[in-house]
């Protein structure tokens, strides 16, 4: 867990010293599948969202230029507003007296795919975990390839180590290490590198083990081979070695060998030294160096990047970096625990920020609703996906759905069945991401506010559907509230804040979080089957009082509309908890807000348990959906 506190007057989006002088701002979010552009403008002295446009992202052929998708999305805004923002393929800026053009352009980028980082050297399980944590807030994937000499000296009888280090070695690998076996391991790792085609490498580990500095030496040799592999192959011979690209390397290994490593990798790698990675104390420098690599070696290599860069005074930044800025700001500004969920086409992000500066970012690359849908099915399995569906579905139908969606990620579900299948996958995407956070030993904390965004949630036709997805997948406890970002703006507001902080704050309050789903009361503990789990007393602002008894295993909605407030009194059953201990009555000190769904009482229990009988499960799911308006 990181602890990064905003300093008032420092980096906080709300406290930037830059004055907001722009009267119009175009904000682009270039995702893997879709590019979304929003126009922010001044309305009666307040920044508001004025129009949005969306178009397929155009980084791949036949366009191979990210600006094409941005311009197509801007064209949609032009159609809506009647203003012109693009002329001859370039942005009109500043805003003209005619109303055409925009003063500022800001972009966040998640297209370009994740950065693949190989972790080399004497990679212990702990170091592998630390490396994964260091990039957990980035679009990045780590692959540990412990040096063969380290494996041989640290485990005489070979056992699986690291991310599938020996997984493909087969049964024949049991026994003693021999030169032949080391060769096999070396070849296996080379094949893995060939398959991964890494963007960068991270060298870790000390030289004080039985293998001495040899793991570091082998790491260098692996990098040399990698560069040779990446430079040859299908490249035309007439280009010679002109196209040879040096592999960026972060060196977080034994400090006394940094110069030797530099010498060995001369001509093959650009070595950046970071603090030796030993414990969580050094995560910050490694994380910052990895972020810089990502921006330089992934974002800046996206086709058309230079053109986009020329439109803006600020460089496009990675979408998770922007989201993390906003989430941490909200947590600190409102002194509450905030959980943000963003389910995208290729990535699912869950970020948790605490009021005391705690921060857990988890960017689950390769888990998403578009080209990465297959990974959800592979990791969760068809049964886990199908458990959320109130109808029978075969494994074949699920696979066919996944394959069609992977091949046509830009499509939307036009039938109810397709919609529900997609929403079932969204639940599992979030579940897998939370599980990944737990695997990295992040201690999650109860959220006071859940902020949700991403296509599958933002485009959910009914607010109840979005609410139920979040309740099912995150399974929050106690009392929380949920907000849906239908504008898909929250991921960009952190970037907006870097150039126009006032605009970021005002748009956040006026537009991005305007779809307040409602306050949720989620009793947990031992809910008595077939009996009342909790009694809820509601005292509306106008003095009207309502009391509701909610049975275990059910969801109830108490009307509490948007812009309405009420005081709650909670009377849990003796074995049930609402955050103050079993059976402890709770009375809110402040009024809670209503929302588009209402006051949600989710007494289904934690963890959520489904009836084993299929027919009963369908009935239960349909009942929950009906109650919440899904």
């Amino acid at each position, binding site marked *: 867990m990181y602890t990064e506190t905003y300093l008032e007057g420092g980096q906080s989006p709300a406290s930037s010293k830059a004055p907001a002088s722009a009267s119009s701002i175009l904000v682009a979010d270039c995702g893997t599948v879709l590019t979304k552009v929003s126009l922010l403008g001044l309305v009666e002295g307040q920044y508001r969202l004025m129009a949005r446009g969306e178009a397929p992202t155009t980084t*791949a*052929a*036949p366009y191979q230029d990210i600006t094409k998708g941005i311009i*197509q999305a801007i064209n949609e805004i032009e159609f809506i507003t009647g203003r012109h923002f693009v002329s001859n393929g370039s942005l009109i800026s500043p805003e003209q007296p005619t109303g055409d053009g925009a003063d500022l352009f800001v972009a966040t980028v998640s297209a370009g*795919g994740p950065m693949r980082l190989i972790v080399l050297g004497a990679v212990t399980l702990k170091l592998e975990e630390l490396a994964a944590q260091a990039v957990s807030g980035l679009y990045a994937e780590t692959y540990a390839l412990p040096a063969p*000499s380290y494996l041989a000296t640290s485990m005489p009888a070979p056992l699986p180590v690291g991310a599938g280090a020996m997984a493909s070695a087969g049964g024949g690998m049991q026994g003693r290490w021999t030169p032949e076996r080391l*060769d096999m391991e*070396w070849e296996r790792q*080379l*094949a893995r590198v*060939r*398959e*991964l*085609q890494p963007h960068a490498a991270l060298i870790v580990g000390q030289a004080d083990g039985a*293998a*001495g*500095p*040899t793991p*570091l*030496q*082998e790491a260098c*040799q692996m990098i*040399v*081979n990698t560069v*040779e*592999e990446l430079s*040859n*192959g*299908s*490249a*035309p*011979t*007439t280009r010679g070695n002109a196209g040879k690209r040096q592999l960026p390397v972060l060196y977080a290994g034994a400090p006394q*060998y940094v110069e*030797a*490593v530099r010498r*060995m990798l001369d001509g093959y790698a650009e070595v950046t030294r970071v603090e030796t990675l030993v414990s969580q104390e050094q995560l910050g420098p490694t994380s910052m160096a990895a972020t810089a690599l990502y921006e330089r070696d992934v974002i800046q290599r996206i086709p058309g990047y230079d053109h986009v860069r020329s439109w803006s005074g600020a460089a496009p930044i990675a979408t998770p970096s922007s989201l993390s800025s906003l989430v941490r700001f909200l947590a600190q500004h409102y002194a509450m625990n905030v959980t943000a969920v963003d389910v995208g086409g290729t990535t699912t992000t869950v970020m948790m920020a605490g009021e005391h500066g705690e921060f857990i970012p988890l960017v689950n690359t390769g888990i998403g609703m578009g*080209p990465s849908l*297959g*990974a959800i*099915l*592979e990791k969760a399995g068809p049964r886990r996906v199908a458990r959320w569906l109130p109808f029978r579905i075969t494994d*074949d139908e699920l*696979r*066919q759905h*996944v*394959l*069609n969606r*992977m*091949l*046509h*990620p830009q*499509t*939307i579900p*036009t*039938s*109810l069945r*397709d*919609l529900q299948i997609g929403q079932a996958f969204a639940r599992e995407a979030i579940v897998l991401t939370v599980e990944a956070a737990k695997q990295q030993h992040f201690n999650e904390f109860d959220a006071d506010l859940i902020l949700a965004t991403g296509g599958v949630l933002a485009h959910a*036709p009914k607010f109840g559907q979005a609410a139920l997805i979040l309740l099912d997948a995150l399974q929050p406890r106690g009392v929380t509230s949920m907000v849906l970002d239908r504008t898909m703006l929250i991921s960009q507001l952190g970037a907006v804040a870097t150039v126009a902080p006032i605009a970021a704050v005002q748009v956040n309050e006026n537009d991005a979080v305007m779809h307040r789903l409602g306050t949720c009361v989620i009793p947990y503990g031992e809910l008595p089957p077939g009996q009342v789990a909790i009694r809820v007393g509601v005292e509306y602002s106008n003095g009207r009082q309502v009391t509701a008894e909610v049975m275990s295993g059910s969801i109830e909605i108490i009307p509490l509309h948007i812009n309405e407030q009420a005081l709650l009194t909670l009377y849990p059953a003796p074995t049930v908890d609402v955050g103050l201990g079993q059976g402890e009555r709770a009375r809110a000190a402040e009024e809670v807000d209503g929302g588009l769904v209402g006051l949600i009482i989710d007494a289904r229990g934690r963890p959520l348990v489904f009836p084993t009988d299929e027919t009963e499960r369908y009935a239960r799911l349909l009942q929950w959906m009906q109650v919440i308006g899904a």
Partner: protein
Amino acid sequence: MVARSLKCRGDLHGRPGCEMWATLVVARIRDREGNRDGCSAGGGKTMTYPLGWPVVTQSLMQRERWPGDYNSRGVPLVRPGQEVQADQAVMLLEKPDIAEAATGFPHAVSPSASYAGLSPSSEGAQIDCRYMQETVLAGMRGQVVDITHRGGVIIETRAAVIQGVIGAGNQVAGVLTVWNAGSSFPLPGNRPAEAGAILVIPGPLNYATLRQATGAGIVGVVASSISSRDLEDFLRANVIALINSNDVERAQAHLPSITLLFTEGLGTIAMPARTINLLRRYHGSIALLSGATSIRRSIFPELVISLAAREVQHNWRPVQPDPTLTIGSRVRICSGSHEGVTGEINYFFTHQQTFESDIRGRAAHLSLEDGSSLVIALAIIERIG
């Protein structure tokens, strides 16, 4: 030279305790160096482009002729600047003979091991103790523009191209052979095509037909669609993992030797008349078929049919595909209950429309080929012409 450069650089500090490991590593690198020409990083992205439209009747393009994998190495038989014919041998492909290496006994080259089957591959096949050599035909008519590090031959050609939605298998060259719907397939002793043919089946394909095609020695099949179950059963592979692979060559390495291209994708979707007509027009021509599909790397299967010299001379009108949706665009529905249906856009709705799922989105009004009309979400149509 990797090993040499490393040896010059020396160890990290030359401690005696490291000597054994250092020696081992250098030995491994020497082995790699020996095979270096046959290794690649799985490139091909620059050579394989998804097109704007699934069918492009005339286009100038460059493709690398490379049917091998990491362990193969190519020995070019042509040089840059040279004009080549589609049935001309352009490369000797050397592939490690794993079976022979394991048994120590030489064995004959199986017909399925020959890529094209059009050349005197049996005569041309030479067996040494480690490599099996195959002659590779150009598959395209045009000019050699470059040779790649691994020995692949880059040819510039004027061609008709069909891009598939999904496929599998390495690049193969063969004679385009359209199967007639009237005849049963395949009739014993009456094969629809000789070995070395790329068979075109205008309708959906199934597992049984694919197995029969394999038995008939066909090098490739172009069909409209197939169920995901049948495809996975035939390939004996997880198709989700296959198309999600970053390393295309490695992913293709263990598939059956027959190369597949499905113009419409998964399910039971018919082939559009326009595609069938184009394929019929080039029946008997030599074509180049690639089945590799990687959504991570934007690689999709394609069939390249080089145009005849006469057609290029008298009727060369290259097409610049533009996927932008406009009124009058011919489009194909790529998802939902109308998947595979084609039509023409005659109206864009100003306001978002609501669909059966209650999702709202921008929409267009389509005139379908059968005369009916449909309101459809823009998100589920793709331009085909």
